[in-house]
């Protein structure tokens, strides 16, 4: 059983009171700022939130844990006024409130920092902040206020810097300052560290602790268990729309928290025997790319070699050139010289993605809907999307399609990867993120590619599906393929890679063998420490 943890399977009021009695520490810490009782939200027949109870005291950092699709975002949307609950009450300072739009929530003192920022890249930080204030506030006053806040909370930021020039961490600071300017009592942070280096995350935690010391409350949404254990006072765990536990994360282990989230033990990919690596199958030589638009990252002299049987990971904060590198390797963007990219010893820099696939390469881009798959098309059509050039059984020389064969293959892939879907051949957008990702990975694995390049294999995917995908990638490498995984998730890379290289400002460090790699070392490289030196050494 989970120690120090109150399980709350039913959602009766009595249970709730029991909870209050049990958790004495909370009441000693002060009054309740927000109390949610029996909150339920239906989408059609789906109970996205089912009788959710939650209370947040003044001056605490409260973690909201759960897998994708557990109902966290639905709950938060209701707290932020952009969704109205079907049933249930929200008490703010012990008063019943109805939140019908975000402006009302802001007026009460609820602020939110989104996972995906909404900033104009062509404007300065101060201008972006001013957009959220009354039109009458002069820009200079806003900039001064922002500067004040940034020094008070340890969020270094130049209000006059163009957002386009700022790192992801700095952009997040703008969002946080923008939120703080509204003087909120409760700040909701949605997966704030998913875009930060370990060192940047440390700085964020200091800021959060300072806010807590001032008596502000923070609702911290995350699936990173170590950091929840580190900074959160209490945690509420959700699964399938229900609250399954309230607990003190400091008294839990990461494994026990994961078990609550997932409902079962989480498997860790077994790396298997590191076979002796074979011939280089994917080689990138001195790849440089000018930025395609003012806000894209230039690639600077990237070199890399992946052997058969090897799984190389590329770490880095988002926006440091990973997507640009992926596009260049996949052939969605061609290179000037054919030798820049070789696939199975053939120069491939001048040929497109279909021809590169024919050389035995397979690609999985970061975005599932709209890049890897067309949302409004069926799974079998989406299978055809990536395989029409490599599988003659799908599309003959005459140009006629053989939908029977495509559908059978789609079924086979769904079975092999345990893709759970509603109908026989549903639209891609009807699948959950994890199931669609399993299908997209399976679509490539089914070909047994000699070279596999994956960008963010488990981004936004539930733990069960993520474990399955990681295992499949490891197995592919062990079977002799060259596998390149680009990921922001360091835990993932440490779990599956044979060596990890780091991308920063469009440069790629030399790969560090997993035995010599540590979080700290990789984290420093992600922050830009001396990456160029390594790249030169590699070139």
């Amino acid at each position, binding site marked *: 059983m989970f120690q120090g943890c109150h399980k709350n399977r039913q959602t009766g009021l009595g249970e709730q009171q029991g909870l209050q009695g049990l958790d004495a520490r909370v009441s000693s810490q002060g009054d309740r700022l927000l109390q949610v009782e029996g909150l339920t939200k239906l989408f059609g027949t789906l109970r996205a939130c089912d009788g959710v109870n939650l209370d947040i005291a003044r001056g605490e950092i409260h973690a909201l844990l759960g897998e994708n699709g557990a109902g966290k*975002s639905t709950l938060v949307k209701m707290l932020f006024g952009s969704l109205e609950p079907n049933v249930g009450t929200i008490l703010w300072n012990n008063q019943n409130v109805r939140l019908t739009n975000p402006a009302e929530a802001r007026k009460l003192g609820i602020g939110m920092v*989104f996972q995906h920022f*909404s900033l104009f890249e062509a404007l300065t930080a101060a201008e972006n902040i001013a957009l959220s204030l*009354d039109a009458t506030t002069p820009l200079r006053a806003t900039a001064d206020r922002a500067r004040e806040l940034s020094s008070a909370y340890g969020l270094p930021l130049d209000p006059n810097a163009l957002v386009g020039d700022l790192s992801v961490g700095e952009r997040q600071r703008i969002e946080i300052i923008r939120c703080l300017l509204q003087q909120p009592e409760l700040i909701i942070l949605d997966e704030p560290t998913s875009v930060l280096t370990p060192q940047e995350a440390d700085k964020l935690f200091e800021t959060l602790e300072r806010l807590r010391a001032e008596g502000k409350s923070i609702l911290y949404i995350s699936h990173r268990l170590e950091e929840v254990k580190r900074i959160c006072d209490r945690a509420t765990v959700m699964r399938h729309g229900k609250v399954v536990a309230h607990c003190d994360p400091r008294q839990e282990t990461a494994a026990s928290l994961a078990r609550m989230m997932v409902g079962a033990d989480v498997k860790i990919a077994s790396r298997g025997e590191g076979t002796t690596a074979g011939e280089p199958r994917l080689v990138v030589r001195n790849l440089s790319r000018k930025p395609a638009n003012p806000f894209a990252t230039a690639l600077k002299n990237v070199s890399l070699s992946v052997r058969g049987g090897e799984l190389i990971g590329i770490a880095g904060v988002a926006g440091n050139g990973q997507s640009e590198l992926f596009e260049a390797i996949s052939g969605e963007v061609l290179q000037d010289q054919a030798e820049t990219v070789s696939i199975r010893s053939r120069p491939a820099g001048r040929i497109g993605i279909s021809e590169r696939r024919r050389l035995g390469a397979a690609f999985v881009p970061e975005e599932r809907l709209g*890049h890897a798959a*067309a949302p409004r098309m069926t799974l079998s059509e989406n299978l055809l999307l990536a395989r029409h050039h490599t599988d003659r059984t799908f599309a003959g020389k005459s*140009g006629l399609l053989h939908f029977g064969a495509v559908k059978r293959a789609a079924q086979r892939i769904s079975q092999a990867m345990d893709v759970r879907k509603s109908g026989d051949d549903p639209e891609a957008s009807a699948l959950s993120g994890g199931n669609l990702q399993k299908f997209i990975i399976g679509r490539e694995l089914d070909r047994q590619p000699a070279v596999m390049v994956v960008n963010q294999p488990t981004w936004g995917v539930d733990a069960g599906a993520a474990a399955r995908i990681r295992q499949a990638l490891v197995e592919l490498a062990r079977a002799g393929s060259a596998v390149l995984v680009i990921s922001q998730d360091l835990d993932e890379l440490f779990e599956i890679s044979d060596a990890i290289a780091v991308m920063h400002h469009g440069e790629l460090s030399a790969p560090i063998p997993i035995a010599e790699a540590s979080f700290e070392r990789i984290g420093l490289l992600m922050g830009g420490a001396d990456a160029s030196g390594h790249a030169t050494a590699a070139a």
Partner: protein
Amino acid sequence: MRFELVRRPERSALFSALSPFLAFGLTLIAGAILFALIGQNPVNALYSYFVEPLTEIWSLHELAIKAAPLILIAVGLTICYRSNNWNIGAEGQFIIGGIVGSILPVLYPEFQSPLVLPLMLLMGMVGGAVYAAVPAFLKARFNTNEILTSLMLVYVAQLLLDWLVRGPWRNPGGMNFPETRQFDAQAVLPELFPSSGRANWGIVFALVAAVLAWLMLSRTLKGFEIRVMGASPRAARFAGFSAKRMVFFVFLLSGALAGLAGISEVSGAIGQLRPTISPGYGFTAIIVAFLGRLNPLGAVAAGLLLALTYLGGEAAQISLGVSEKVARVFQGMLLFFVLGCDTLIHYRIRRVAQAIAPSSITDTPAASSSEAAALEAGGTGGAR
């Protein structure tokens, strides 16, 4: 207080299919009100407009004559629009097709051969395709907006035709009327059943084109490419499909079909070139394409309906004494209602109580911030 459109979490399949019928029903109601307002008995007026033309054999032939160009053009536009390319200039490609196809009978009347007609049709298609290649090239090369360029080229084509028939191509024995010489029998598209009416092979071309286009869209890799390109351009690039080649393909194809419609009309229904050879077929075909749900077979049904509005307009002019512009009014209402129905099937209207606070705008400045956008838009995206 103001209104905003909010995307529905799921659209009703039933209403999507019913939408063209709903639109037609609403057009009839609005038409009845319109007729009542100008002092006509709405029932009689609608009868003579929409039913009477269908009661006689000869007027069914006329329906086929009017429907043929509409369907031919709309089939091409359907393919174009499915790939997310917006050719609005089919009227111009229709006219150029008519002009280029008429080169042989107008300039070389002495060339007599059974090959004349096939050559004319071929040249008409080439003419339309080449004319459509202009906006395609401009889009692929300079990223211009094809809606504007293709539309503007319509006026160029109209003026070119006007100049030709008043100038160099005017019939030397035609008493200075602005028209070319009458085509010889070999240059005229034959009628299907000469005993009962004028309908010519144009309608057959239209039906064949519709079936072939449907087969292409649903059964071939090229059709798949077109659909992916329209549904998700980035996914199409990932699939290895080239957007630039697609621009040329769909513009050339739709231009060729419009050109074929043009020369068929000139050769079959008119028999010579005149300053005006189209009552706006190229524009009306846009309505046909949308009313036909961007499906080539749907375009056949929609083409017949729109042809009826032309016939009804003529009939109403005669029996009711109203302006023939009434046909354009009906066509406009039909497009308005079909687009309105489609919009309301995908979105619902939400009333916003007060003017939006400046602060709540900021969370949705960029399209990329989809999460924030969904939140602010009332969270209807929450079910995703």
